[in-house]
């Protein structure tokens, strides 16, 4: 028998899409039965009370979580999101309901052994509820009490060789697309650098030392499967500098209808036979392709590597051999002064371990500048807007490059430095008046 009546959220059990309400109820039931005789370390009926508080929110049209919450583990300044219910007498099972962020393996590959281990831990010491995964990438343990935080952290570290993720004004948990592990488009090993930088900057991740949050994301190609360009302060996006590799026989197979375009992504509708002119050549943004006398040609210097032709004909076209990444900076959501996508800073850089050039010429100079100049709660993107792209170039030492802009400025409000102008800025009005009377 359910602890609380939940007529509103019960209506989210029907329909084909997996129902979170049904799942929550099955966990509530599992805890009530406790077939494995677990010594639950937080209230056995916490899932029932979560159903209850959610139902009340559906009734009121408002959240029932109190503002904020500051909890954590010794040694770290983040990793746990504290949360308390604003009706603790009605729902004592979720009076404390803190979230722990657990650092996920790059690419989110798992063994069932690992998943079983975290389930055992979290079932005993938490609510048994998770998010797989948080938007930044972490495994989310959803709901436990303050006294359990150190116990969970101890077990994670000692038994599972596993750390917490980031929260607060620091480096957040980096994440990546699956990269070379299962994609022929990947231009660098996203997982290797994601793991390397996460470990290199553990101190910056666990102990907030920044003006605000900072995120890394790693996309293996410009398709951006982890959305680095929109969702990270420093985005790594794979690219290449040489020719797209063309298999002319495979091109003919596409034209002959032997291979479906775009790997069959449009198979649910009849779009007619594949037309290379219409679907590839004419849609190329730079019009640098042509198909003549049974041969596909690409004028490499004019190609902007948008991926369209490769996406349409993955068996005939492959990314080049001279691979690396473009680095882009400053993406953020709207608060405070408007959303930003990332801006191109480094058109091409090799991405090879131990990544020394990336660390020393990009990451650390940017952090040095932003940690000194960034205002309280100012994202990197906002600092770049406030102090200017030129300042970013100055602190990183990169030379201005037309690739960094969409278009040159249209206003003529151009700053010059005194040492760029002959004679500097120090002038004598009396000298001027010798030739120009008042």
């Amino acid at each position, binding site marked *: 028998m359910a602890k609380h009546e939940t007529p509103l959220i019960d209506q989210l059990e029907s329909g084909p899409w997996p129902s979170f309400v049904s799942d929550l109820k099955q966990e509530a039931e599992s805890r009530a039965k406790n077939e494995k005789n677990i010594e639950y370390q937080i209230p056995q009926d916490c899932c029932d009370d979560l159903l209850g508080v959610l139902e009340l929110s559906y009734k009121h049209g408002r959240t029932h979580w109190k503002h904020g919450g500051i909890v954590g583990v010794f040694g770290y300044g983040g990793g746990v999101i504290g949360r308390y219910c604003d009706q603790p007498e009605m729902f004592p099972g979720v009076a404390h309901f803190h979230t722990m962020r657990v650092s996920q393996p790059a690419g989110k590959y798992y063994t069932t052994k690992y998943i079983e281990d975290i389930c055992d831990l979290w079932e005993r010491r938490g609510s048994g*509820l998770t998010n797989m995964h948080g938007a930044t990438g972490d495994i989310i343990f959803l709901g436990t009490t303050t006294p359990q935080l150190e116990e969970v952290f101890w077990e994670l570290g000692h038994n599972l060789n596993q750390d917490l993720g980031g929260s607060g004004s620091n480096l957040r948990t980096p994440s990546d697309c699956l990269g070379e592990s299962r994609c022929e488009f990947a231009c660098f090993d996203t997982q290797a650098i994601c793991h390397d930088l996460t470990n290199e900057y553990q101190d910056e991740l666990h102990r907030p030392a920044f003006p605000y949050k900072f995120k890394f994301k790693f996309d293996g190609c410009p398709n951006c499967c982890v959305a680095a360009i929109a969702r990270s302060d420093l985005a790594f996006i794979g690219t290449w500098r040489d020719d797209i590799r063309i298999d002319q026989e495979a091109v003919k197979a596409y034209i002959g209808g032997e291979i479906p375009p775009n790997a*069959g992504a449009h198979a649910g509708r009849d779009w007619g036979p594949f037309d290379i002119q219409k679907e590839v050549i004419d849609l190329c943004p730079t019009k640098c392709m042509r198909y003549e006398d049974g041969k596909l040609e690409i004028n490499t210097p004019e190609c902007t590597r948008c991926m369209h032709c490769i996406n349409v004909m*993955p068996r005939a076209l492959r990314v080049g051999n001279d691979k690396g990444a473009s680095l882009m900076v400053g993406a953020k959501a709207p608060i405070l002064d408007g959303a930003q996508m990332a801006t191109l800073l480094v058109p091409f850089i090799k991405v090879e371990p131990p990544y020394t050039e990336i660390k020393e010429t990009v990451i650390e100079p940017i952090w040095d500048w932003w940690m000194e100049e960034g205002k309280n709660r100012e994202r990197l993107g906002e600092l770049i807007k406030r102090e200017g792209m030129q300042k970013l170039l100055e602190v990183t030492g990169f030379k201005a490059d037309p690739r960094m802009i969409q278009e040159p400025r249209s206003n003529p409000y151009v700053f010059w430095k005194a040492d760029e102008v002959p004679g500097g800025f120090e002038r004598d009005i009396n000298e001027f008046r010798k030739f120009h009377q008042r």
Partner: protein
Amino acid sequence: MAFISSGYNPKKPMENRITDIGPRKYDEFYPPVIAKNKGKWLYHEILEPGILVHVGESGDKVYTIRVGGCRFMSVTHLREINEIADKYCDGYLRFTTRNNIEFMTDKEENVKPMKEDLLSRKFAGGSYKFPIGGTGAGVTNIVHTQGWIHCHTPATDASGTVKATMDVLFDQFTDMKLPAKLRVSMACCLNMCGAVHCSDIAILGYHRKPPMIDHEYIDKMCEIPLAIAACPTAAIKPTKIEIEGKELKTVSVKEEKCMFCGNCYTMCPSMPLADDVGDGIVLMAGGKISNRRDAPKFSKVVVAFIPNEQPRWPTMTATIKRMIEAYSKDANKYERLGQWAERIGWERFFEKCELEFTHHLIDDFRDPAYYTWRQTTNFKF
């Protein structure tokens, strides 16, 4: 409920403390076929909705079955995922960047029985536990947030709006019949955790009333200058108020300058603004993150307000469905929703999607607003 120690000694908290070990290394979890062929994949194919095959230079193949995940899931559900992965995939699995689950196997003969098994599993209420899909030119999982399950600043619920929307769009998840992939995202307030600002269609929780001020507590609870600095439109200023003969430091909010973003509440617990009838949904459209053909785009506000109609948000889901149907009918092959809207013109987008255009949709935030107005005579009647 007896307390069971993990081994942690609260009297000596720093003793035997392990820190800064980071995540587990990714390659501990690679299925052998992935480890062997990493960086040497030749091509891939979508065999049917939700089922992929990748072929390596070695000739090795790996089959992937992608299934929808709720993101919010219990350990019971995770253990059922494990059971499937043990049965068909030698104990390996992964999650995608949109919170779907991928089961991989190099054994072609496992694909069909796994597929049948996955589709046979349903929750007590009747919904699929593991619907197969989310590939190619269709709708995949909705990137979403915490909502009323765990957050203190939402203007709507996340899990509920997502379930309601995915039920309505379910046949787009299990098929590939759109002009291009269509990404739906959801955020329960305009902090926009996730991908709302860069999705084909986005559901955004929004407030419409200025914050209430808990004058008696604000100076005790808040760093007042931070609340002032949190306002994008400078609607907040410090002030003093007299309550029961005592002068208290507080703030005042200029109502005509407040656009209800809630960022002051994020910084200051004494400025709550949630409201049952004020709060609701904004719909945005036309964003994308890939660089395919043209640059990434922000999503644009196309519906200024839809009320919260929990538990199923019928007006919101019907509006989303109408937009997708208009797009599906009208757009060219490979054209993302934003590319379609820009090609036909936003005036035509509103007409084809039968959306009302109101003054709320015209940008009025600072200098960049000008660049969103129309400085040309080129328009369609």
